[in-house]
């Protein structure tokens, strides 16, 4: 062995000796710590802790601290920590405690297990918790930490000593508001430990909460945590009012009774009340939860607070959900047998008569569903739900119906992957319309003439398939009303839908109504009309209270009602209008559509019918009024009337817009329009007319050209024995002198003072005029040198 090898062996020998010595020293040190942990965990080492904690982002300090670490056996160690004036400042929370004392025993091993906790005493605490955005959890870390925590604490094997937490003040800081209050939670007495805990949680008045208090009482039947448990929670909260919103109050009393140790079977009893006047819900539920069955017995009264929505009373409603098989998909069966009573609250009509309706109507809600067990919203349900209404039978109304829905789908995926097939059959009918007329006769809701003379039946209801996911219901209305002269048979079918819009936070439900109204058989009488300017049937919309107009506009803007209504007559069955001015019923075809955003579009047309025009038998060949889609555009008219004479047939063509109709006349064989107007107005050709009649022809033409003759006025003029007709292009006023009888005439259209005439010429009657001439006018009569005016009563004749 050379000197190098000998030197190497020497180094190895000393290294091994040193390592052995080091291991020996470590083992001795560990043995000392194990036998006497206070060597490592003591007040001095604890004093060093804040420095290390600060490095890891936790600022924890205390005024005084004392720690004891005792070894009860080789593996079991006891620790007590007692702090005074401890303050901690963490990222999401901070707080100070007058006293914090904590004792626990652990069993050393892999892993270390906590087997005794307590007594714990936290006194005089003042804690601030800040609302922070939760960090997205790192799933690996979460799993790791939760796993190690589970291994560290096993509640079922852990003995908990007395616990006393007195937070003088806790605060929860949110963006705009801080909630604060106190929290006490402690063992019921010094010795109860895990056997009986009670606690009180209270908040102070803030902008959000007026007051809130919850009292907890968890009691173990064996007082040591090894028996079954009873829990009772009494909670009451009053939220602060915001502006004019009503006070919101809620209270609940929950009793849970565990039936067997270590099993999750219990009976429960809940009594709850929620109120935000006038909305209010009272509910009592009692039942049981078993491993294979859940039962509930519900009594509830719901006041919706909405005047038109009924109060709902649920009495003795039984729900039974049990496991019926071991099937993984639908092991459970849900049975529901739920009698419900709903108040009938009709729309509030001021001064409406008593309709003798029952105060409420009943029904029964039943269900038979295959479900998961225990219930889970993310698993399939499948079955039937039904609601049967009790029949309504009153002197004025009769009704009844049922709803049946077949469900299939996963509730959590509603409505996308959830099928509901619903059959509706509901009706409310007025069997004797006369009784309604009589009932309302003396009220402000009286049925108006000419409908009030009719008798018959009206039925309204919902029948057919409904789409609950889309909130769609099929509706219908049928009338079968008639009187001696009139008839009103209407068949309307449609759909009502509640469509969700708005944001997820603030959803808005639009009421969407689509109705197809078929005027199956209608004959309606107009009031008896004189040959005079027709009366205004509706107030002039141009004159309206500005506030009222604004309110209406705001209401229209706020309205969530969307509608699409088509009104039509059957293809070959027009509605008929009866009038004393028409020899026969006037046939009218309607095909119109209205929506909330668009006024009426479509057309109203008059079918062929005979009439008297210009003292002749005439025939309306066609008349169509088209309502354009543009909102403010007037309707267009297109019509033709035929008046037959011995030698020729005159056709009056009406076209243009309803507010400015144009009238054109053509004839077979062709005549000049002047001649046509002359013949129509006076029954003679132009050459045979008196001068004033000739002027009338001119005026009629001018007025027609200007669209100054409304359709009603045109009819009145055409139906009147006209003596003369005047037209003022400035004022666009048409005046007519009509012959009432021999020697008597009547001026129509405009007052004398309101009508300007050509220069100073005024017709008095046939042939006669009053004329004022200016002597120096261009008429050529300049014989008088001096200027002057003359007024003449003249007789004149053109030839």
């Amino acid at each position: 062995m050379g000197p190098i090898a000998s030197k190497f062996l020497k180094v190895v020998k000393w290294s091994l000796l040193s390592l052995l010595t080091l291991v020996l020293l470590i083992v001795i040190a560990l043995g000392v710590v194990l036998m006497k942990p206070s060597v490592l965990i003591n007040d001095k080492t604890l004093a060093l802790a804040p420095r290390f904690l600060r490095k890891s982002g936790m600022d924890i300090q205390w005024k005084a601290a004392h720690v004891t670490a005792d070894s009860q056996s080789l593996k079991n160690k006891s620790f007590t920590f007692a702090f005074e004036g401890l303050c901690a400042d963490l990222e999401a929370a901070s707080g100070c405690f007058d006293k914090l004392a904590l004792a626990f025993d652990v069993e050393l091993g892999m892993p270390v297990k906590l087997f005794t906790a307590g007594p714990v005493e936290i006194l005089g605490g003042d804690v601030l918790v800040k609302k922070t955005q939760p960090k997205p959890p790192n799933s690996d870390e979460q799993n790791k930490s939760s796993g190690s925590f589970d291994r560290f604490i096993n509640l079922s094997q852990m003995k908990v000593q007395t616990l006393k937490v007195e937070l003088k003040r806790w605060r929860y800081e949110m963006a705009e508001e801080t909630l604060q209050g106190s929290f006490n939670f402690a063992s019921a007495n010094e010795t109860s430990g895990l056997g009986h805990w009670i606690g009180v949680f209270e908040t102070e008045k803030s902008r959000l909460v007026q007051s809130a208090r919850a009292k907890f009482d968890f009691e173990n039947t064996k007082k040591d945590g090894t028996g079954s448990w009873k829990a009772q929670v009494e909670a009451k909260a009053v939220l602060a009012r915001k502006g004019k919103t009503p006070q919101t109050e809620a209270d609940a009393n929950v009793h849970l009774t565990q039936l067997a140790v270590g099993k999750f079977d219990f009976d429960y009893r809940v009594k709850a009340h929620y109120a935000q006047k006038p909305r209010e819900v009272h509910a009592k539920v009692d039942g049981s939860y078993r491993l294979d069955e859940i039962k509930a017995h519900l009594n509830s009264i719901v006041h919706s607070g909405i005047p038109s929505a009924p109060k709902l009373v649920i009495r003795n409603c039984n729900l039974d959900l049990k496991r019926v098989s071991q099937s993984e998909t639908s092991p459970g069966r849900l049975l529901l047998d739920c009698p419900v009573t709903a108040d009938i609250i009709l729309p509030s009509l001021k001064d409406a008569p008593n309709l003798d309706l029952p105060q409420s109507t009943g029904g029964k809600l039943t269900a038979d569903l295959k479900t998961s067990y225990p219930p889970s919203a993310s698993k399939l349900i499948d079955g039937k739900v039904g609601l049967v209404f009790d029949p309504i039978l009153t002197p004025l109304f009769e009704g009844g119906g049922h709803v049946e829905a077949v469900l299939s789908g996963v509730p959590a995926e509603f409505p996308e992957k959830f099928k509901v097939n619903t059959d509706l059959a509901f009706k409310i009918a007025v069997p004797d319309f006369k009784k309604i007329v009589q009932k309302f006769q003396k009220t402000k809701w009286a049925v108006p003439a000419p409908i009030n003379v009719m008798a018959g039946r009206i039925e309204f209801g919902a029948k057919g398939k409904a789409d609950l996911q889309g909130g769609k219901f099929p509706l219908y209305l049928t009338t079968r009303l008639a009187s001696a002269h009139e008839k009103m048979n209407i068949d309307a079918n449609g759909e009502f839908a509640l469509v969700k819009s708005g944001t997820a936070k603030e959803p808005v439900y639009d009421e969407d109504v689509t109705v197809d109204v078929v005027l199956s058989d209608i004959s309606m009488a107009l009031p008896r009309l004189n040959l005079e300017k027709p009366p205004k049937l509706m107030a002039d919309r141009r004159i309206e209270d500005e506030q009222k107009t604004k309110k209406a506009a705001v209401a229209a803007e706020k309205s969530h009602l969307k509608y699409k209504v088509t009104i039509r007559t059957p293809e070959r069955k027009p509605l008929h209008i009866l009038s004393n001015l028409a020899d026969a019923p006037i046939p009218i075809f309607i095909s119109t559509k209205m929506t909330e955003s668009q006024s009426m579009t479509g057309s109203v047309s008059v079918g062929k019918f005979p009439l008297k025009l210009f003292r002749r038998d005439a025939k309306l060949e066609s008349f169509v009024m088209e309502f354009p889609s543009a909102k403010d555009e007037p309707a267009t008219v297109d019509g033709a009337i035929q008046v037959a004479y011995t030698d020729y047939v005159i056709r009056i063509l009406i076209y243009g817009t309803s507010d400015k109709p144009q009238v054109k006349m053509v004839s077979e064989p062709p005549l000049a329009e002047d001649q046509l107007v002359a013949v129509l107005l006076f029954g003679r050709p132009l050459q045979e007319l008196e001068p004033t009649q000739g002027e009338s022809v001119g005026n009629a033409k001018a007025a027609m050209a200007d669209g100054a003759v409304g359709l009603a006025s045109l009819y009145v003029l055409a139906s009147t024995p006209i003596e003369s007709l005047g037209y003022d292009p400035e004022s666009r006023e048409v005046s007519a002198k009509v012959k009432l009888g021999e020697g008597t005439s009547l001026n129509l259209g405009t007052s004398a003072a309101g009508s300007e005439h050509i220069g100073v010429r005024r017709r008095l009657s046939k042939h006669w005029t009053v004329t004022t001439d200016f002597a120096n006018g261009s008429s050529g009569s300049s014989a008088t040198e001096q200027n002057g005016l003359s007024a003449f009563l003249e007789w004149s004749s053109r030839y």
Partner: protein
Amino acid sequence: MVASLALSCLFCPIPQAQAKKLKEEKPCPHITIKGENIPKFTDTEKRLICGDPKTDDAVGDSWKSIPNSQAKFSLDTFLQSRGYFDAVYEMREDGFSVNVGKPTQVKALVGVGSPPDLELFRKRRVVGEILTPALLDKVEQWTAQRLQGIGYACPEIKSEADPKTGIITVAMVPGEKQIAARVIDESSGGITPGILDRYNAFNFGKLFNGDLLVLSERRILRDGVLQGLHFSNACEKEGVVIKRTGIEGPPRLLTVGFGTNTEGLLLVKASWKNTRIGRRASLIDVTALASSKTQQVNATMNWYNFAHTSRRYIQPSIAFIHANENPYEISEVRTQLHEATSYDSQDIGLTFKAGPTLEFIKTARGNGPKDSHFLSFETDTSLTSHYNEFYFKSPRTGYRVDLTTFFNSDPIYSETTAERINLDWEALWNYRNFDPPLWVLGFRGGLGTVVSGERPGPGTKLPPHFLRYLGGSENLRGFGRQELTDKGSGAMSSVSAGVEWRWVESPLPFDLQPFVFTDLGLLGLNPLDFDSPLYWSPGLGIRWESPVGALRATLAHGYASGQPPEVSHLQFYFSFGEEF
């Protein structure tokens, strides 16, 4: 003391009038209508309120019974159309009574989108009037008419009103100002298209004015060329295209009438006209006119023989005249052959006639030659502003000037040289151009002279009606017709002027319009020379614009400066159709 008390009490507060007793009407037994004034309803309206007991026709008993609520709704609508918005109802089971309240008066008229030159404030008889749909129609119509009058040919107008505040708002989209581009003649029958352009009060290529269309239409109808006529206009790219639609009617018109003239004389008139001779619509007018003072037969032809669109025409005429006035009595045969033309700008219309006039005159009473003849060169010029002509029936604005001259010389078939010049003018001012006017101030005047070596008096060669006279409603209303003759023989010169203030919107009933005036006048014995005295006549009068023309009554006192008081006296006139 008493007088001062009385005077001071003029300003005492007037005790508030006691609440008027409400009138009551029952259109049917179960409905009572109350109010200080109860509006009248038509028969159809009454049926819609009370029901229709008649059941024997197609309508049957459908409207026999009207429920209270429906009757109230209908009545509310009918009341609204009459300006009643505050009706108070007392509903009973078996009917109702309603106090219709007072009609709402318009408090303000507001324009939205109004061009500055519209001057909506000029529209009167809106504020203070009863708010009705008909009033809104009128406001819309006036606004459209005024906009068309200032060039906005195709405006869009919409009005609305708030019955609570009484404010009418007129929203308008006037569009662009347009020019009058062209006229299209429709159905003017046998007349050459474009012939009627001679009546145009407007010019093509100039700013469109709807009033001038109306004026043009009136001119055509006044001449009787067509029996009926209508202008309509459409806004095109090139400007406003005007459509002129006429009804010819038979061309011959026979008229017989009686009436009165400015001086209150009874008149009888007969005329025969052919208003459409040939394709250029020449005109023949034969008129006979008779009053107790004057009888005349006049035959005139307006012969349009120049290029068809020309306004020039030849006017031959012959007149047989007998005049029996206070100062004289003459008979005359007058023949004329004039060439005439006319011109219209956007503001004024001018007519001009000139040509030889041959007069044969026989003097039966008064100074002057028994038989005389005069061959003169006559000119007639008349200048009238369009708005004076437009408001001819109810004068309020504009001006008119008429100048007539006769030039002759005794060597050329005349009794003596007697050159006559006559100038008349009138100007009216409508205060702030209100429509209708609040008050109108008018000025008028006349100047006439005969330039001749002859002087009035016995042996003169001047026929008496060549001379100048004053007095009468035409110039000096404080004196009788032609009462002022300057020493009984007539004068060589006369000048007159008058001013009149008419209160159009007076508080008098029946829309009576009071007015005050003063007329001044001078006569002179030499051509264009005026002598004292100064005649003047302050007075007052009243005017009523009846449906058939204006009736006027005046009472004035005539004074002559420096003359014996006998000359001065009160003079009353009542006239029909005359305006200032």
